[in-house]
């Protein structure tokens, strides 16, 4: 299986561990990630806050590149990239006038034929393989799956799962041998980019999420979004109070990698701000944990 | 072949049916056969020359057939769709007919066509056929056949016509229809033309002039096409029967395209699938309506 790969800026920057773990997991699963040549910014929040047309054209350029490079589908691991790419695809598909303008705007032919996938969706499609490849190292580990906002909404764009009650991430986690917990804050806002401008709001929101996961008995939170990860991991020290245990926050690909027995180093687990040691200590065989500082 | 003959023998000698409608060897190639005596079952054949759609003999407007008793009929996949059409339009009851399906690898345009079947001799509807397996049959005999030789040609010709200006298309069809002698062979051979009294024969008022005259010819062919919309099974019999070589298959193919495009309907041998004309959808396209 070969799939076009759109890493976006995060996976080359703050979330390198997402990229590293994903490549390690893809290798085990026999998925070839073909990075799109000459990819550019998806537009993220800035574009659609300033110019609507631009916010569609930027993703369209990348989709057109993928199209010309022969890809039927593109994997966009970052939830924001995914949302922008899938959103633009949807908008162009449902607006003939917009579709007609696209080739001229982006300066290349574009038929809007490329499907956009996120990590949860792709891994979910490989459940049987994951079950076979996963040993038992995660047995007994409880995980809170955190979707955030961009992965499953809006419903008409992100139709791979129920926008209000998604289950795919839990199913992937189950396939790794870990146990997903039932909790309430799975879809709550993490504060997103307000992390910089209104840090206190993000701390307040993140704390509620951490507390709920902890109350549900989770040993770790699993995410599939660099923004969520950054907020819950990087800002966690401000969220937990004295006496409260830290909550490791893992990318879904990292958890799957652990299940496959990939060395934590290769999964980038050492890059986290909140130590994953408490979790790694429980991963069987515990030898794996030694590779981390 | 043996299998088919054996089956016919059993059906006749057990009294299950009074007649088996199939094909036999005739002086000019294959021809329809009506076997009423089990001993004659060995006359039955099936090969690429058996182009006739025998379903037309099931029409209740053929009383001499009814006299032969309950019928078993040999059908190719395309013919089975005609039987389904008759069932759908309550002309035949399912329990009144035994359907023997044969697996088809395409037939020749001419029942006298020599072996083997080639891209030159194959009937134009056969290449790319999607109905070679008769699902409706009570018994299916014979082994799976290879794909018919050759490539589909009609869609390209239709596209060519569609690309012409209206006056050019008009001239094309007028030249074709000008040859029509109103012999009604297209109608008589058609399994789906089972009306008691064809509108083409109606007087008081006479909507369609019945003499071979350009005006009546045009009206007839438009009306025939319209009445076939969503009903034609593309068995090609009208075109084969036409002594004037009018490309009726082209027109039929065009209609099939229209109903597929607009109503998502394709001829099928499942009689429970309702025909598109006589039904409607709230969301039918209406781009042609102001």
């Amino acid at each position, binding site marked *: 299986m070969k799939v076009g790969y759109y890493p976006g800026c995060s996976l080359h920057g703050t979330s390198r561990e997402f990229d590293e773990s994903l490549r390690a997991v893809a290798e085990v699963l026999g998925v070839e990630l073909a990075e799109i040549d000459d990819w550019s910014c998806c537009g993220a929040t800035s574009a659609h806050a300033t110019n609507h047309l631009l916010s569609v054209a930027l993703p369209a350029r990348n989709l057109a590149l993928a199209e010309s490079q022969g890809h039927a589908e593109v994997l966009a691991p970052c939830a924001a990239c995914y949302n922008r790419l899938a959103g633009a695809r949807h908008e162009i598909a449902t607006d003939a006038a917009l579709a007609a303008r696209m080739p001229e705007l982006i300066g290349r032919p574009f038929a809007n034929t490329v499907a956009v996938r996120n990590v949860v969706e792709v891994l979910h499609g490989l459940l049987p393989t994951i079950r076979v490849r996963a040993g038992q190292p995660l047995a007994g580990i409880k995980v809170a799956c955190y979707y955030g906002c961009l992965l499953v909404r809006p419903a008409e764009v992100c139709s791979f799962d129920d926008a209000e009650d998604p289950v795919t991430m839990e199913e992937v986690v189950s396939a790794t041998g870990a146990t997903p917990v039932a909790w309430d804050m799975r879809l709550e806002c993490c504060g997103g980019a307000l992390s910089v401008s209104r840090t206190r709001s993000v701390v307040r929101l993140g704390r509620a999420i951490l507390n709920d996961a902890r109350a549900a008995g989770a040993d770790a939170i699993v995410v599939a979004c660099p923004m969520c990860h950054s907020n819950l991991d990087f800002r966690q020290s401000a969220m937990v109070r004295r006496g409260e245990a830290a909550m490791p926050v893992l990318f879904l690909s990292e958890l799957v990698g652990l299940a496959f027995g990939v060395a934590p180093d290769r999964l980038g687990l050492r890059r986290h701000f909140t130590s994953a040691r408490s979790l790694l200590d429980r991963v069987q065989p515990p030898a794996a944990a030694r590779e981390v500082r | 072949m043996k299998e088919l003959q054996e089956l016919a023998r059993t059906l006749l000698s057990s009294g299950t049916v009074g007649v088996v409608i199939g094909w036999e060897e005739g002086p000019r190639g294959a021809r329809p056969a009506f076997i009423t005596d089990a001993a004659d079952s060995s006359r039955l054949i099936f090969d690429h020359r058996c182009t006739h759609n025998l379903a037309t003999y099931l029409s209740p407007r053929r009383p001499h057939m009814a006299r032969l008793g309950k019928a078993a009929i040999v059908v190719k996949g395309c013919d089975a769709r005609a039987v389904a059409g008759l069932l759908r339009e309550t002309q035949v009851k399912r329990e009144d007919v035994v359907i023997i399906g044969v697996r088809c690898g395409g037939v020749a345009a001419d029942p006298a066509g020599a072996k083997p079947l080639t891209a030159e001799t194959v009937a134009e509807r056969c290449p790319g056929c999607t109905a070679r397996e008769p699902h409706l049959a009570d018994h299916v005999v014979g082994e799976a056949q290879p794909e018919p030789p050759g490539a589909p040609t009609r869609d390209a010709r239709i596209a060519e*016509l*569609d690309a012409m200006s*209206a*006056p*050019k*298309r*008009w*001239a*094309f*069809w*007028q030249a074709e229809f000008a040859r029509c002698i109103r012999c009604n062979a297209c109608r008589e051979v058609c399994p789906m033309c089972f009306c008691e009294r064809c*509108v083409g024969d109606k007087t008081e008022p006479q*909507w*369609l002039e019945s003499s071979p*005259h*350009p*005006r009546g010819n*045009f*009206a007839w*062919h*438009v*009306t025939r*096409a*319209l009445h076939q*919309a*969503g009903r034609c099974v593309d068995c090609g019999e009208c075109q084969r029967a036409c002594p004037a070589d009018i490309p009726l298959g082209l*027109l039929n193919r*065009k*209609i099939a395209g*229209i*109903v597929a495009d*607009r*109503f998502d309907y394709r001829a099928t041998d499942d009689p429970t699938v309702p025909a*598109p*004309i*006589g*039904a*409607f*959808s*709230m969301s*039918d*396209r*209406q781009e*042609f*309506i*102001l």
Partner: protein
Amino acid sequence: MALPAEKIEAFEPRITAFVCNWCTYTGADLAGTSRLQMDPNVRIIRLPCTGRIDPLFVIKAFERGADGVIVSGCHPADCHYTSGNYHARRRFAVFNEILGFLGVEPERLTFSWVSASEGQKWREVVNDATARARRLGPFDAFRALAGRSA
């Protein structure tokens, strides 16, 4: 096929309209009561419902020398008989495409939904159909079938 300007002036197309009793006929009545002036080239034949309008009527009208034909009835969901217009829509969708395939200029045939309150729309339908037929000129091709030319 377009005619030179002076001929267009002189030519008065004959247009037959088949309309349903409840919507378009009443809409045409409203155009009358509203005194909406329109081209005098259209003659209306009243049927109960578009469901009753048979493609044979259209063929016959062309055979008899009509230069244009209008078929008009109730908007979807407004049919007095619930669904006659839906059946007509399917029937005429196919008929229209077949005629086109056989080389009849699509401008000869006008299909419209005109409700009882759309007198204004009826005027537009009439004037547009007349203008189109005027532009195309007499339907000589069809008349030639009968061996007579206009």
